[in-house]
């Protein structure tokens, strides 16, 4: 236990040391919320990866590959497809963000649709939907500490240790804001996805050479993709990939990455850097999971595959490294979630109705982050049997932000009526369908509740765009917004003077 817990303690101390050496001092709320829009492509790439891939990748998706096989590869498809979306929307989002001093995702919706209310709705949906995932992330650390304690702690005790560690880590997230998150993402990301990939490849080679494990010895059912006649339905994989790809950018902590870059060029370069890393990491993880299904003990506890194989291959030292890698990935995701939520509480809820100074915004953001950390830590220590279902429900709900977000960025015609009505109807439809048909719509050929609700949402948005035409003034305002993006074509990487936010 000294080896495994010692490895965790050393890694934690290194991250804290890096943060202290960086000497972060936030002068205003833009510094605190989006790091002063100052990060280059390398930081952006690693920050995106560290927020996108949580520690649960090694447990939940590694476990899915070990138990269900090739269907787990849907995470690879949507994780790369979402970077295409990032590439395409990088310019309009960054230029509007810089020009109008936008700090959060609801800021952008408020600007595009000229509505205070949409800002509140988007923030509430984002914050509430994020909490189950934050709690699940904290609870997932229980698996880590259960194995690192060499199974001497009970699972409940392990969850409490994990919650304590990640809550303690938030001291630096609260103090240092987005700049602290992105700087630590670099160190954590190198450990989680570069060292992690190297270890995955090493474990694959170990399994093939010492255990004679290969694809040819796999159970044939591991190669099934839900198709015509399957239980899940022929459109199940389509639905998972579509909602995963577009839904990723609906999460506030992912979307805010578009505002932390120092220019459009950095954002696009970060996409080009992140995507090969993402490809190699994800393929290595899923192939590892599939092959490891043949290691004794994995089929009984597939979510523990990463720890079981690491310990068997390299003893306690490798188990310790496996724990450090999962913690590094977990820290990045949890920090990003808490930081973005705190900024939203201050900027989009309190700041949407009361005029706050920059200093007050920072104070409210810090209080919000502290409150969220305590709430999530408390919830994570409770037994919540419906938590996973709640998290699935939250995902089907939050992807309803996609319609006003993407159409608002790329189509001039939509209006706030369609955006609010479509998003609200989509959210209610998704929740109702999920409650009536939990996890599976038997009549929808495998489409998830969120995908069906997206159709309703889209129909309302487009319908109201034509039924309620924009006024001449609104049309001009939207034209001007799109013109700003066009005019900044040659200034994409250069500084742009900020203008007052429209909300």
């Amino acid at each position, binding site marked *: 236990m000294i080896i495994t817990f010692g490895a965790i303690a050393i890694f934690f101390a290194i991250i804290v040391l890096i943060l202290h050496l960086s000497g972060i001092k936030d002068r205003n709320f833009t510094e605190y919320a989006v790091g002063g829009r100052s990060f280059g492509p390398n930081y952006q790439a690693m920050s995106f990866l560290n927020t996108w891939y949580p520690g649960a990748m090694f447990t939940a998706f590694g476990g899915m590959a070990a138990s269900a096989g*090739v269907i787990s*590869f*849907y995470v*690879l*498809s*949507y994780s*790369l*497809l979402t970077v*295409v979306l990032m*590439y*395409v929307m990088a310019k309009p989002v960054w230029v509007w963000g810089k020009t109008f001093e936008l700090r959060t995702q609801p800021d952008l919706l408020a600007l595009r649709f000229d509505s205070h209310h949409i800002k509140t709705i988007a923030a509430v949906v984002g914050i509430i939907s994020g909490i189950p995932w934050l709690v699940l992330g904290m609870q997932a650390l229980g698996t880590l500490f259960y194995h690192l304690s060499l199974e001497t702690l009970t699972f409940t005790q392990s969850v409490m240790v994990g919650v304590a560690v990640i809550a303690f880590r938030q001291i630096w997230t609260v103090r240092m804001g987005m700049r602290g998150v992105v700087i630590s993402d670099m160190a954590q990301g190198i450990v989680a996805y570069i060292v992690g990939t190297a270890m995955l490849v090493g474990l694959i080679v170990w399994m093939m050479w010492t255990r004679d494990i290969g*694809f*040819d010895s*796999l159970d*044939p059912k591991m*190669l*099934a*993709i*839900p*198709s*015509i006649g399957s239980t899940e339905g*022929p*459109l199940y*994989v*389509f639905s998972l*990939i*579509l909602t995963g*790809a577009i839904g990723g950018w609906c999460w506030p902590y992912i979307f805010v990455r578009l505002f932390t870059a120092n*220019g*459009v*060029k950095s954002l*696009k*370069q970060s*996409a*080009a850097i992140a*995507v*090969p890393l*993402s*490809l190699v990491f*994800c*393929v290595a993880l899923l*192939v590892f999971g599939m092959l490891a299904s043949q290691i004794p003990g994995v089929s009984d506890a597939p979510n523990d595959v990463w720890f079981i194989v690491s310990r068997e291959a390299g003893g306690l030292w490798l188990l310790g490294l496996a724990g450090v890698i999962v913690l590094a990935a977990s820290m990045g995701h949890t920090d990003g979630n808490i930081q973005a939520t705190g900024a939203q509480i201050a900027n989009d809820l309190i700041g949407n109705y009361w005029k706050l100074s920059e200093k007050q915004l920072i104070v409210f953001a810090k209080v919000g982050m502290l409150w969220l950390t305590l709430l999530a830590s408390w919830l994570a220590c409770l037994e919540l049997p419906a938590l996973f279902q709640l998290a699935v429900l939250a995902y089907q709900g939050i992807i309803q932000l996609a319609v006003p977000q993407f159409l608002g*960025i*790329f*189509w*001039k*015609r939509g209006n706030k009526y369609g955006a609010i009505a479509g998003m609200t109807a989509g959210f209610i439809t998704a929740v109702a369908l999920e409650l009536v048909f939990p996890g599976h719509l038997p009549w929808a050929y495998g489409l998830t509740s969120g995908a069906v609700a997206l159709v309703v949402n889209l129909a309302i948005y487009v319908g109201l765009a034509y039924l309620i035409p*924009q006024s001449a003034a609104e*049309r001009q305002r*939207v*034209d001007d917004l*799109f013109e700003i*993006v*066009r005019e900044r*074509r*040659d*200034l*994409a*990487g*250069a500084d742009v003077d900020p203008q007052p936010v429209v909300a």
Partner: protein
Amino acid sequence: MDTDGTAPRERAPWITAWFILDAVVALAPPLYWAFDGKQTPILGLPAPVFYFVAVATFIAASIVAAYVSEARSGGLGS
């Protein structure tokens, strides 16, 4: 451009076409149905694994190619 139009485009048409193809190869159900349960190895990988890895490589290549192309043409600014 009229008010019903979309945002002005500056991307090379072949990049836009590649991005659209990314979505098609990743999402089109008949493509993944065709690999369901196939055990025939392709380049050493079972066919369904090969399908997903090939799609992912195709998408990754499109982003790298788009960035290199736009950087070379000066379309990314300074």
